[in-house]
């Protein structure tokens, strides 16, 4: 590909995605710290102070309490946090209800007491962090919004790659890190744009690509359900879903016992959107730093409570699972989050300076064209029309030449005084 084509790719991919990417980067700043912010904004009851080694309460009791609180509703999932002693029971009016009606009841993992009866999703979405998340992920538009922002992410990746290709020839005569100050504001920001862009290239690529993969979570999960999960469900064809499902705590225990070193992190209930009609879908988390991010799905027959299958997730679910930490930056302590925020801020500077350079260049081009038009209309035809002549120099020349011979400024020069018009007049007379 020719350099001109790369320039075209860089210009248009970034122009189309910049505004969306600026919103993504700005909303990403609070999202990096969402755990800390959620903690700080939490208005539920505090956890009970318990001596070290206190066993966790059974989630069966929590499920019973949640059902008693909302008798007409169904339990969608249970999430048993492994960092904090908290258990969330996700509920919905029914399994095919609009997700905006879903809500969570938070329990103390040790005592099994209710800590917070959370608001419905429709209200959660309008909280500060809910709005940040929506602007970052789907603009309140669900799957179409996710796919659209995913496409913007792809354009961002294309902008990074094309920018990298342009960097080489640009830096031919410049030392690394050169920021030419004092010549023009545009030149300084061009150098800074190139410097900040090339220095954060790897981080930008990783966060960009993993962001795109995260936006594909819904279709990727749907693909897995429609292919591998559907195959696992074949033996259950024609059977009614279990009327009285087995114990969910037992399902979690059975699943974690099946894979030594793993703990159950969450369970999708039989019939829920992300589960199957016949199983508890238990997600196990490994013990090593890497496998802590790679969850293993285990199917527990909800009629018998017996282990059905330990599922080997397909490569695209593994990619999705690895894309989460690598995009969120939440896997290396608070210092990593601060580094993430700083790199995000640098990306904002790269995006904003790119936009500024495009506007400034357009202005310069417009001014140059206007100056050339004036020069064309000026009486002295020997105008240096070199393309690299700056607009200021051209317009300065155009203004000064006629000023020497006549007091009339060039732009408002009467038509009759230009050579072409004069010759036309002489022809006519």
């Amino acid at each position, binding site marked *: 590909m020719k350099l001109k084509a790369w320039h075209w790719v860089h210009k248009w991919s970034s122009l189309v995605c910049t505004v969306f990417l600026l919103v993504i980067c700005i909303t990403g700043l609070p999202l990096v710290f969402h755990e800390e912010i959620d903690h700080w904004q939490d208005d539920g009851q505090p956890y009970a102070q318990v001596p070290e080694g206190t066993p966790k309460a059974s989630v069966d009791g929590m499920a019973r309490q949640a059902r008693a609180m909302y008798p007409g509703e169904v339990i969608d999932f249970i999430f048993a946090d492994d960092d904090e002693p908290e258990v969330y029971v996700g509920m919905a009016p029914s399994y095919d209800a609009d997700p905006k009606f879903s809500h969570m009841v938070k329990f103390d993992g040790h005592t099994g007491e209710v800590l917070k009866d959370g608001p419905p999703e429709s209200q959660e979405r309008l909280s500060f962090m809910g709005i940040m998340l929506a602007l970052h992920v789907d603009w309140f538009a669900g799957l179409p919004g996710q796919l659209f922002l995913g496409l913007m992410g792809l354009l961002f990746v294309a902008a990074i790659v094309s920018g990298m290709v342009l*960097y*080489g020839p640009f*830096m*031919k*005569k*410049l*030392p*690394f*890190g*050169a*920021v*030419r*100050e004092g010549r023009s504001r545009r030149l300084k920001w061009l150098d*800074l744009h190139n*410097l*900040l862009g*090339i*220095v*954060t*290239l*790897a*981080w930008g690529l*990783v966060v960009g690509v993993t962001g795109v993969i995260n936006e594909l979570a819904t279709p990727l999960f749907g693909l897995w359900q429609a292919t591998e999960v559907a195959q696992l469900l074949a033996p259950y064809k024609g059977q009614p879903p279990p009327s009285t499902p087995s114990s969910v705590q037992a399902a979690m225990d059975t699943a974690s016992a099946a894979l030594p070193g793993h703990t159950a992190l969450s369970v999708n209930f039989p019939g829920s959107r992300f589960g199957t009609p016949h199983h508890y879908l238990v997600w196990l988390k490994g013990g090593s*730093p*890497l496998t802590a*991010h790679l969850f293993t799905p285990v199917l527990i027959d909800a009629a018998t409570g017996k282990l059905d299958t330990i599922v080997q997730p397909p490569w695209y679910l593994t990619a999705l699972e690895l894309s989460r*930490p*690598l995009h969120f930056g939440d*896997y*290396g*302590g608070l*210092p*990593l989050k601060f*580094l993430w925020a*700083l*790199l995000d801020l*640098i990306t904002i500077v790269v995006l904003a300076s790119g936009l500024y350079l495009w506007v400034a260049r357009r202005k310069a081009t417009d001014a140059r064209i206007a100056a050339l038009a004036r020069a064309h209309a000026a009486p002295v035809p020997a105008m240096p029309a070199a393309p690299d002549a700056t607009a200021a120099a051209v317009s300065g020349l155009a203004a000064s030449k006629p000023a020497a011979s006549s007091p009339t400024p060039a732009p408002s020069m009467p038509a009759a005084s230009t050579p072409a018009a004069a010759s036309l007049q002489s022809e006519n007379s």
Partner: protein
Amino acid sequence: MNKKNHFRRVWGAPIALAALTVFGLLAALLGTGAWHWAAWAALAAPIGVCAYFWALPRQPS
């Protein structure tokens, strides 16, 4: 200046910083304890380079 030197002059620093970034991302993902410290240091490198050349502009000779 020959071609190899030219490539190193233009791409040496960006490649080194990209390698440090990738190392930092993986060290934080795969390791604990000292690896996290190494990851923080590695990821601070590109930020430090940005700050250094932005705050102390280097004029081309």
